[in-house]
């Protein structure tokens, strides 16, 4: 088999905010003809930069310095002439980006956008049908905003395959989509490969997404490939501690509910320290002295062991395969979490949240006199006992976030009522970064919450220091602004603000959906700890069934503004009664437990 793309010793450094950093540090990789290669890594691992480098589209504003080669066909995408690169992009490459709304032209009809690549409307129509768009002729003349997210991604796919590319690069094509649509898009990628015979590079932060359709998986860490091999091998017999960590911190429907979620060790080393030796050594539980000194080469994992069957499987680690796999088996069990207060223990008579007959109707102003009414909530009844944790699951548009916002007092109730227990509700938002006022310091933000207590200066400072410490942040954080914090730290600050005066009810609106898996797990651990230590009721909104099961004693499934199913968490997951719950469950990408 020939390779459609060959990456050799690729090194890329980019300037961000005036600082030059090495984003890719020696990547060797081939994409074979007709294969789907999954490229997995956390944010900052360099996987998107690798995709841009393969397309010859590194942003000039970041003043890229590139070493090594990227060959697509006979063309060097690093040193080639601009017109050569354009020809390759036109003839050999197809691209699918994360957000089709921003990568499609909003002022052009979608058909015309496909025509730009095919120069033939009949062919465009055929492609639209081929990528699974029903009524292609009808949808040929609509604008991108008139289509759903899944359909837009299909249009992108039609454009991507229009030039009969030998390689499609899909950069997080499913991240912005609901789980049921995600499954469709992944199927689509596989069908494109089968039908058009092209290779696909699937870039994703979620190992399970890659595992669903990829033939091989490359795990990236800090600009290098940590491990590369057939999907089955990577998922079931990982040989790099980082892959093991990623797999273990991934939440699945089988993750034990009564134990702490496993997380990767937080990064403690400075950027300079990380550049010496193996980039992962400062977080690696198996690190030995050599790891901090010398960079391990990417070598076949099969060497000297019988446990790994394939010679295709390569890894960059000084420890032996048996050491890594032995560690995997030794430490699968996490410590149990403190028992949550049994529901109703604190105040059995009075529910913490009582919602009766709640409806919310938004009136959207259209152009001119048109007014459109959107029924976001259509009659919600929900009672949550004090100390209980309830997860609300649903896809975008189900009304789950609106429900939370009505409880928080941020959105109006059209009819019905919401009653809250005495200490009221506090909320943690999806995007912690933007929920913190950018020009205020963490201290300012927390002091504001403490104002009603009328504490003196010293007492306020003490309270803030204690709360930050309890949540795992150093007290010095209080002098920093949100932009100076990492994503995980910002979410912790948001949690501190919500709980520095413990509320009766903590509302969580997808607080972890923007975080990497391991970071998300640590935030979920924290919320569970806070719940038991502060005796709070928790309402947790999420689109992820695995997270819902872990965070709620009870799971409530919402769609189209109504509750369709509600019950004890494991019962809902194991024996869903409503059709919609079943379709949600069927779409969850699962990779099974480590063997």
């Amino acid at each position, binding site marked *: 088999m020939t390779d459609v793309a060959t990456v050799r010793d690729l090194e890329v450094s980019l300037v961000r905010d005036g600082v030059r950093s090495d984003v890719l540090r020696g990547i060797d990789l081939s994409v074979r003809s007709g294969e789907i290669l999954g490229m997995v890594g956390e944010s900052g691992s360099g996987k998107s930069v690798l995709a841009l480098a393969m397309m010859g589209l590194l942003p000039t504003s970041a003043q890229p310095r590139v070493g090594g080669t990227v060959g697509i066909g006979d063309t060097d995408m690093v040193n080639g002439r601009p017109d050569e690169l354009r020809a390759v992009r036109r003839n050999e490459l197809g691209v699918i980006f*994360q957000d089709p709304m921003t990568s499609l032209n909003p002022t052009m009809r979608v058909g015309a956008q496909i025509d730009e690549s095919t120069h033939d409307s009949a062919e465009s129509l055929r492609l639209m049908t081929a990528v699974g768009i029903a009524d292609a002729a009808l949808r040929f003349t609509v604008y991108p905003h008139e289509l759903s997210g899944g359909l837009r991604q299909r249009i992108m796919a039609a454009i991507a395959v229009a030039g009969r590319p030998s390689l499609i690069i899909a950069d997080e094509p499913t991240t912005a989509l609901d789980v049921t649509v995600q499954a469709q898009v992944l199927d689509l990628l596989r069908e494109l490969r089968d039908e058009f015979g092209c290779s696909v590079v699937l870039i994703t932060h979620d190992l399970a997404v890659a595992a669903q359709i990829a033939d091989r998986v490359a795990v990236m860490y800090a600009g290098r490939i940590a491990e590369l091999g057939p999907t089955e091998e990577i998922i079931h017999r990982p040989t790099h501690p980082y892959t093991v960590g990623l797999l273990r911190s991934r939440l699945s429907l089988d993750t034990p509910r009564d134990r702490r979620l496993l997380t990767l060790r937080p990064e403690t080393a400075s950027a300079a320290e990380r550049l010496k030796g193996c980039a992962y050594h400062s977080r690696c539980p198996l690190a030995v002295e050599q790891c901090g000194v010398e960079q391990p080469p990417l070598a076949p994992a099969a060497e000297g062991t019988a446990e790994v069957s394939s010679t295709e499987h390569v890894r960059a680690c000084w420890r032996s395969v048996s050491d890594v796999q032995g560690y995997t088996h030794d430490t699968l069990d996490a410590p149990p979490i403190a028992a949550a207060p049994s529901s109703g223990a604190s105040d059995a008579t009075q529910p913490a949240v009582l919602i009766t007959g709640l409806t919310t109707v938004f009136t959207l102003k259209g152009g001119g006199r048109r007014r459109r009414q959107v029924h976001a909530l259509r009659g919600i009844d929900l009672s949550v006992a004090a100390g209980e944790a309830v997860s609300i699951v649903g896809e975008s548009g189900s009304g789950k976030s609106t429900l939370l916002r009505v409880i928080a007092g*941020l959105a109006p109730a059209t009819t019905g009522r919401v009653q809250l227990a005495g200490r009221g*509700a506090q909320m943690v938002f999806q995007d912690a970064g933007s929920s913190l006022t950018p020009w205020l310091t963490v201290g300012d933000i927390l002091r*504001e919450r403490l104002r009603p207590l009328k504490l003196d200066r010293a007492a306020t400072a003490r309270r803030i220091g204690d709360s930050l410490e309890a949540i795992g942040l150093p007290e010095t954080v209080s002098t920093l602004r949100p932009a100076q914090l990492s994503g995980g730290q910002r979410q912790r600050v948001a949690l501190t603000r*919500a709980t520095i005066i413990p509320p009766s009810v903590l509302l969580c609106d997808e607080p972890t959906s923007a975080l990497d898996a391991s970071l998300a797990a640590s935030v979920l651990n924290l919320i569970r700890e806070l719940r038991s230590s502060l005796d709070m009721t928790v309402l947790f909104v999420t689109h992820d069934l695995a997270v819902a099961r872990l965070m709620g004693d009870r799971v409530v499934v919402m769609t189209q503004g109504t509750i369709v199913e509600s019950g004890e968490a494991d019962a809902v997951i194991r024996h869903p009664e409503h059709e919609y719950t079943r379709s949600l469950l069927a779409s969850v990408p699962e990779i099974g437990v480590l063997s």
Partner: protein
Amino acid sequence: MTALPEVGTRRFRMPAASLGAHAGTRLSVAILVALGILTLVALFARLLAPYDPVQPIGALNLAPGAEGHPLGTDSIGRDILSRTLIGVQVSWFSSLIIVASGLVIGGLIGVAAGVFGGWVDAALMRFTDLFLALPGTLVAIAIVAALGYNLQNTLIGIAVVWWPYYARIIRGEVKSFAARPHVEAARVAGASRTRIVFRHIVPGVVPTAIVTASLDIGNVVLLLAGLSFLGLGQPAPAPELGADTARNLSQLLSEWWVPVIPGLAVLVLSLLSNLGGDAVRTLLAKRR
């Protein structure tokens, strides 16, 4: 994955950025230093001026470089350097006053409209539209003509038509900040309405307002000079850049320096303030 939304104002890019980050910063700082010197000169113009600007003290129409009169004298023997210095003082501080008044009036109206929304917003914005629809310069001229020709009335006339621009921009910024998640978060956290406006919204608007205002100073310098050229400034013999150019225009071919030097002063003022606006913009964009 997704980058967090940019904090603060609209992003601007200065052409100087291509010279490299530091060159852009250094150039901007240099321009601001020059503006600072200009302000000091304007402030101490009375002390710096060698002669009384309205008294004829020398020979008529002396060329620049003449002894005791580095910029020469005009047709009745007044010292041009002294007149230009005082003219710069009047022009510069008048411009700052106009821009400050625009910022204050427009800011109040814009913040009120943006924060209250609903009918308050609608009423304030229609009122603003009304002023935007009027030809500003003509209304200013009409006001001056009605109130009488002097500097104070000119300033009132311009101030009356100058704020709507600021009201519009500031209202838009307030609205966009009010819709940000951090404002909702502050509401849930129990911050009062006043507190939300002054702690969580207005500070975000300030950079845009400052950049808008500093880019606007040059416009005001030119407008004031223009009105003064048309005779809508202080009555003679008060030294004023526009008026000095206009009154001595007949000497352009014989004694060119008499009308040209005050005109050059206007050019320098407006150029410096425009560059200053760009510099403020560059430095603020860098800070974020």
